[in-house]
């Protein structure tokens, strides 16, 4: 958790990079995660593949399928995280995914596994605050951050319940929709981030639909973090095992843009 809170620099936005674990195979993910770090990513979001990724657009759906077809198991994801932690003791890593793979062995099992693998936080797409007790309590007990999502449909009345018990950072999903498709207007992002920051001291990271260095720079002027996922996953889809250098160059272009934005 401390790794996570220290990873948002004071003078610029953090770059949060998502890839699906095990895509294209579990053996390749380590190299790809290293490329994210080399390219300048501050926080890694490692996706746990799921057969039914209901909140994801075609790019990440396909990444899930590639990963599962390569035989990726939950144990592989945890191994990938453990090995990443050994290589990168200071870069925070967050697991992102769906409720069923995270809770199937019980929330305590998952919380222990996160601790053992050096995982700093968890983002679960389909556990809203209303069902927090099915995972959140176990994670908090082990000091694994429970990263909450806020969306354009989260109104002022609902926001306090989301911020209550949130930790790590707040993830603002800037469009009502699935991953990878459209991007929100800058004005609406600015307005939303201001509203969220008025309610919390947690850093606010903004994601969904961010593709270009210009978009990343624009968001980094108003938010504490920029999340990029589908665009990286598409590079992995295109280059497969050889994606490392391409991923690194692309992430560097985002990172450079963010570093010179403010």
């Amino acid at each position, binding site marked *: 958790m401390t790794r996570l809170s220290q990873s948002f620099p004071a003078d610029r936005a953090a770059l949060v990079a998502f890839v699906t674990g095990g895509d294209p195979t579990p053996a390749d993910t380590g190299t790809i995660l290293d490329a994210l770090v080399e390219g300048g990513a501050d926080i890694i979001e490692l996706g746990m593949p799921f057969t039914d990724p209901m*909140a994801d657009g075609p790019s990440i759906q396909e990444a899930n399928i590639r990963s599962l077809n390569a035989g990726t198991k939950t144990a592989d994801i945890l191994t990938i995280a453990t090995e990443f932690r050994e290589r990168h003791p200071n870069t925070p890593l967050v697991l992102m995914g769906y409720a*069923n793979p995270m809770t199937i062995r019980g929330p305590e099992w998952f919380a222990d596994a996160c601790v053992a693998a050096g995982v700093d936080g968890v983002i679960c797409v*389909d556990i809203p605050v209303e*069902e927090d007790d099915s995972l959140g309590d176990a994670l908090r007990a082990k000091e694994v951050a429970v990263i909450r999502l806020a969306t354009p449909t989260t109104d002022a009345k609902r926001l306090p319940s989301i911020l209550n018990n949130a930790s790590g950072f707040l993830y603002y999903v800037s469009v*009502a*929709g699935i991953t990878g498709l459209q991007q929100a207007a800058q004005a609406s992002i600015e307005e939303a981030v201001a509203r969220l920051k008025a309610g919390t001291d947690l850093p606010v990271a903004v994601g969904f639909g961010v593709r270009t260095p210009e978009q990343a720079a624009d968001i980094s002027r108003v938010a504490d973090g920029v999340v990029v996922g589908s665009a990286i996953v598409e590079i992995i889809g295109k280059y497969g095992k050889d994606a490392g250098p391409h991923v690194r160059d692309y992430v560097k272009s985002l990172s450079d843009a963010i570093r010179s934005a403010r």
Partner: protein
Amino acid sequence: MWTESPPFAKRCAIMTKTTNSPNSYRNQPDERGHFGEFGGRYVAETLMPLILDLEKHYRAAQSDPAFAEEFDDLLANYVGRPSPLYYAEGLTEEVRKDAPEGKGAQIWFKRDELNHTGAHKINNCIGQILLAKRMGKTRIIAETGAGQHGVATATVCARFGFPCTIFMGATDIERQKPNIFRMRLLGAEVVPVTSGSATLKDAMNEALRHWVAHVHDTFYIIGTAAGPHPYPELVRDFQSVIGKEARAQMLERIDRLPDLLVAAIGGGSNAIGLFHPFLDDPEVKMLGVEAAGHGLDKEHAASLAGGGPGILHGNKTYLLQDEDGQIDEAHSISAGLDYPGIGPEHSWLKESGRVDYDSVTDIEALDAFQLLCRTEGIIPALEPSHAIAAVTREAVKMDREQIILANLCGRGDKDIFTVAEALGTEI
């Protein structure tokens, strides 16, 4: 007697309030939408405000006599309710031929296959389209497996003037062609879903994806008693017309309740609709019938028999899944049963022991399909054919005076191509 039964709002009030006694099986779910450990609201944050809003509107509708009145009127005059309660003498006698001395229970059917559009699905669609109207939504989406729910949704959309988009697995489109044409005739857009196994679960994923991107104007008519709260509850309430009618009809016709209720289970809406009004009648046993496909040790769709608790499509329930929580592909000859989950109330009823669950293979269902055609002059859908197979299995074990009531929840016109192929006949 139908005019004497309490109006919908009052019946719902009975269901949600008076039955809150510790000895009732009819007081679920709790205020969080949980049926014991099952159910709940496992959805993305984007959808959460919307389903809270849906619940608020549903509660308002439950206490609005005008809503009940319109619902009852449409069921009576558009759907053609009440559906008949029928003593299947031909099937009963046929089953008795193989029964031990003194055995061979009477077999009765609730004839929901006679509803407009040919299945029970329309009951729920009428209720949900009225809710959509109340909420001021302007477009409708739905998922469909067999196409029956898609047809029923397209039907109510045509009737109420809503644009309608139906998500359907590409595999199902192949095996339910007549229903695709019906949906298109009714003005619906049918979107083939090719992701995953290209069947019902994938259609539901795609409908959910579409919904998150269109939350403001779109109402999602879920076709079974599953999904995030309040769907399992409201679908059950709308489908409970089946059991309420059947209970009253039984009492009127023979002044007693049946000994055993039997219904097929895909997501579980026709079954819960029949069972729920009888849950607090301890003398009435109940049997839900899952699809055993090629057999429980092979590919099947029996999530209670062959699965375990997990979270999918907004609710916690029994699922077919591996040790990592990856969802397995289901298989059933019946597209309407080809789903790796089950409504959460059934998971709870199984664990509470109130309802028994069994399964029937593709081959047994095909035999039952033909048996009903020959003995009763009724061509059933493949879904209730599973129930009929279980009925014949149970009837020979029960005394002649005993009564089985099964839900004949759909007619078989849509399935004749599938059946012909399975029987090796060209049409």
